[in-house]
């Protein structure tokens, strides 16, 4: 729903006209109003209950290959005009004359309906959830010595208007809940983490039970108390469905962002139409898939979110694009222009990135692996898009011996090279799961989703300390 209450359309038209008064090819006003609540429970105490409110506008002016940008917290017409002038400073040389912009409002469907606005739920109810999670986690094992739990919700209303006449908006509600447990035993301390996060309101807790989240975090910590050091060296790896999606986020997701492509800083540059992965790999980025963490109605340039097939049966089909990179290549944006807030310029970002399921039985994949590592849960990762080298951390893993999952392993990173690891995927399961994450790029964080079925990579380097 477009919220014209943030700034009136006729004001936006005049500000856009002013932004281009000194010349320039494109101008945009991005208005944002975000309210959030955060509660953290630690040691059975509500350590922090905080509320935040941000409201402002970012204005950019594009002149040739140069972008000028300024932002302000002053949403009055003079405030916006001043920001427009600052952004237009890059166009000082050109004489633009009078530019008239006429906005046409468009509406994009929300990925899902919000049933219960978190702002309408009492803070006491939210606190109650955290206390319950603490109770549940501690009830799972006497070795749980520490529980912390976090709750967060945000409502982000945005309005985008640009000199092409676009006027669009979104009202996006996100809710998250996470639990971290510390277990203590003879071998020291171990941690377990689990999170539930969706682009929904308070109905998050109808979709994901607090009990499951807390129990899962506790189980991970306790399991690792008996873990032995992970092997070191190259081993076959089976990755359970869900959090393993971070593999694709790092191994190729970032490298398929068009800003890296237009600057020739990705290993995937110039490889459209080529086989860049095992034929079992079909990879999709889709901002419209239901309540997932990276879903949205429009991106932060006002373009409706869409489904983009990136790799089909191993062949590179397309990259992800924002407005600027698309314009350079004379094509349309793919709805991947995102920004952390009105204080940031948009750039190419992923939404929900996932591998489509295959035909193999997940249990068979393990049974047919004589020796290797089973990764049940992955943490974050990092990639160098130019070389393709990437790492990701295992936070729950086991040895596979004679086709059976056996002993738990301590945390370790895995390292691989994107195109190499993608070519070594030799089994893709028929199951599927999605997982929330926070993606950082160039100092900006945005919520994303990752997903995959159970799969096997014939060889990845594991950074443990035990001889393989």
């Amino acid at each position: 729903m477009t919220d014209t209450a943030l700034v009136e359309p006729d004001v936006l038209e005049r500000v856009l006209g002013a932004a281009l008064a000194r010349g320039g090819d494109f101008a945009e006003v991005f208005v944002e109003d975000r309210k959030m609540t955060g509660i953290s429970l630690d040691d059975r105490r509500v350590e922090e209950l905080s509320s935040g409110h941000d409201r402002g506008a970012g204005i950019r002016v594009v002149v040739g290959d140069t972008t000028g940008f300024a932002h302000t917290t002053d949403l009055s017409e003079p405030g916006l005009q001043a920001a427009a002038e600052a952004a237009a400073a890059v166009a000082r040389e050109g004489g633009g004359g009078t530019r008239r912009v006429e906005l046409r409002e468009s509406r994009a469907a929300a990925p899902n309906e919000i049933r219960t606005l978190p702002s309408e739920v009492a803070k006491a109810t939210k606190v109650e959830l955290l206390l319950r999670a603490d109770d549940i986690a501690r009830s799972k094992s006497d070795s749980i010595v520490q529980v912390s739990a976090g709750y967060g919700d945000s409502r982000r209303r945005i309005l985008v208007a640009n000199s092409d006449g676009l006027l669009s908006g979104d009202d996006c509600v996100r809710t998250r809940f996470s639990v971290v447990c510390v277990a203590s035993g003879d071998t020291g301390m171990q941690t377990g983490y689990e999170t539930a996060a969706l682009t929904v309101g308070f109905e998050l807790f109808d979709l994901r039970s607090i009990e499951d989240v807390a129990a899962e975090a506790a189980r991970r910590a306790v399991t690792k108390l008996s873990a032995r050091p992970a092997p070191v060296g190259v081993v076959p790896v089976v990755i359970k469905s869900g959090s393993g999606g971070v593999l694709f986020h790092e191994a190729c997701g970032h490298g398929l962002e068009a800003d890296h492509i237009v600057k020739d800083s990705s290993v995937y540059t110039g490889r459209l139409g080529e086989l860049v992965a095992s034929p079992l790999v079909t990879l999709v980025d889709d901002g419209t898939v239901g309540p997932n963490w990276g879903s949205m109605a429009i991106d932060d340039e006002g373009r409706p979110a869409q489904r983009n097939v990136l790799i089909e049966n191993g062949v590179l089909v397309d990259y992800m694009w924002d407005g600027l990179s698309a314009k350079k290549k004379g094509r349309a944006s793919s709805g991947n222009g995102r920004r952390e807030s009105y204080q940031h310029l948009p750039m190419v970002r992923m939404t929900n990135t996932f591998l489509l399921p295959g035909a193999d039985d997940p249990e068979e994949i393990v049974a047919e692996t004589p020796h290797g590592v089973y990764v049940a849960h992955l943490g974050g990762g990092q990639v160098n898009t130019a070389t393709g080298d990437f790492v990701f951390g295992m936070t729950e893993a086991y040895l596979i011996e004679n086709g059976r999952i056996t002993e738990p392993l301590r945390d370790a990173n895995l390292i691989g090279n994107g195109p190499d690891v993608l070519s070594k995927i030799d089994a893709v399961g028929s199951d599927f799961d999605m997982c929330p994450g926070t993606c950082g790029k160039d100092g900006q964080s945005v919520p994303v989703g990752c997903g995959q079925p159970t799969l096997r990579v014939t060889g990845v380097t594991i950074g443990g300390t035990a001889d393989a």
Partner: protein
Amino acid sequence: MPELIDLAEAVTRHADDRAGEEVEAYVSRGRETSIRVFEGEVEQLSSADSAGIGVRVVRDGKQGFAWVGALDEAAAREALTEARDNVSHATFDEHAGLARPDGVRAAALDLWREELAGFPTQSKVALALELERQVRAGDSRIRQVVSSDYADAIGESAIATSTGISESTRRTTCYLFVYAIAGDSDDTQTGFGYSVGRSADDLDVGKASADAVDRATRLLGAKKPHSSRLTVVLDQRVTATLLGIIASTLSGEEVSKGRSLFADRLGEEVGNGQLTLVDDPTDSSAFGATPVDGEGLATRRNELISGGKLMGYLYDTHAGRVARTNSTGSAVRGGYRTTPGVGARAISLLPGELTQSEIISAVGDGLLVQSVSGVHSGVNPVSGDFSVGAEGLMIRNGALAEPVREMTIASTIQRMLLHVRHVGSDLDWLPGSSAGLTLAIDDVSLGGE
């Protein structure tokens, strides 16, 4: 524009003293400019003013917090009202409370350069362009300069409490950053370089460009090494990253909650005798230097590890009360949007005697680690497990040999500290909260072929 401290004090005057209510207001405002050039042209020029207020209220042992990204009376009112409402839902905590003046005088630090405010945009653009030009000209194998950035920030903040704190600080910072790709017929490698300072005079274009060029080109032809157990020589930047992690485990808050591998180990030998670790935000050469911490108390020099022995932890007011000790002036806050927490600002090892090349020569055989990746996913500050991606150069017969990549190095933080062999003399303050120097550590697992 009213003075920030007046705005902050005005909020604290609303505290209901008779009801035992304590109020803290943290206000900040700043102006940032950032410029990115690409292929000899300005790609992005961004200028922005930002301002905000964060209000903390403590009443009956309960704390509430709220922030608003604006600086006017309405914003202050909204933040105070919300923070008070949040108090009612918090849990009673006997240790809750704001900082009180503790008699320690704030160090006189000069962190402000008036000339940065008047430094013209065209000169900033020229610096970024010159950096890009020097990197491109630095080596024929540099095939792309992905970005060359200049950025600066002028910021002031003030903190006042109804318990008697009233402090203001201001600082200027600027930096250059360049990211380059080197390539030959069959390989691509990357490197970045930077320079930081308080005014443009501090910026060293030559050093930033040489770093980016060297780091990218010397890795060309890198291969995946065989797995082994060896001595690693950590480059300055890598050591700074490691110190940042160690500092987080020395937070008194984490220690009290049993979430630190250093809990209950005061007085024990936790590292090699060459190791002395200090957090000293009063050292004005540190990038994170500040006279006043995130609660308005004076910062001070804290020795955490002395000759390998664990001497103490870092505390803010709350963590200090829990541990029945005083704040060490170590409250940090990430701007007006967050409450203070415990953290280091200027952590460094006392430098040793040897330069990096002397250490390489003394080590004989091993690995020079130029950069690490996956630190946030591969290091567990509770268990101490350490496993990160790495790239660098092998050390053979006391000299740098072939480049290596796509490998991991792994150990535990506990073992790494005990196995330190050499501490370098090449101390350098890096952006962030730690100083780098070359550090040689024995018996680390290298994961490769």
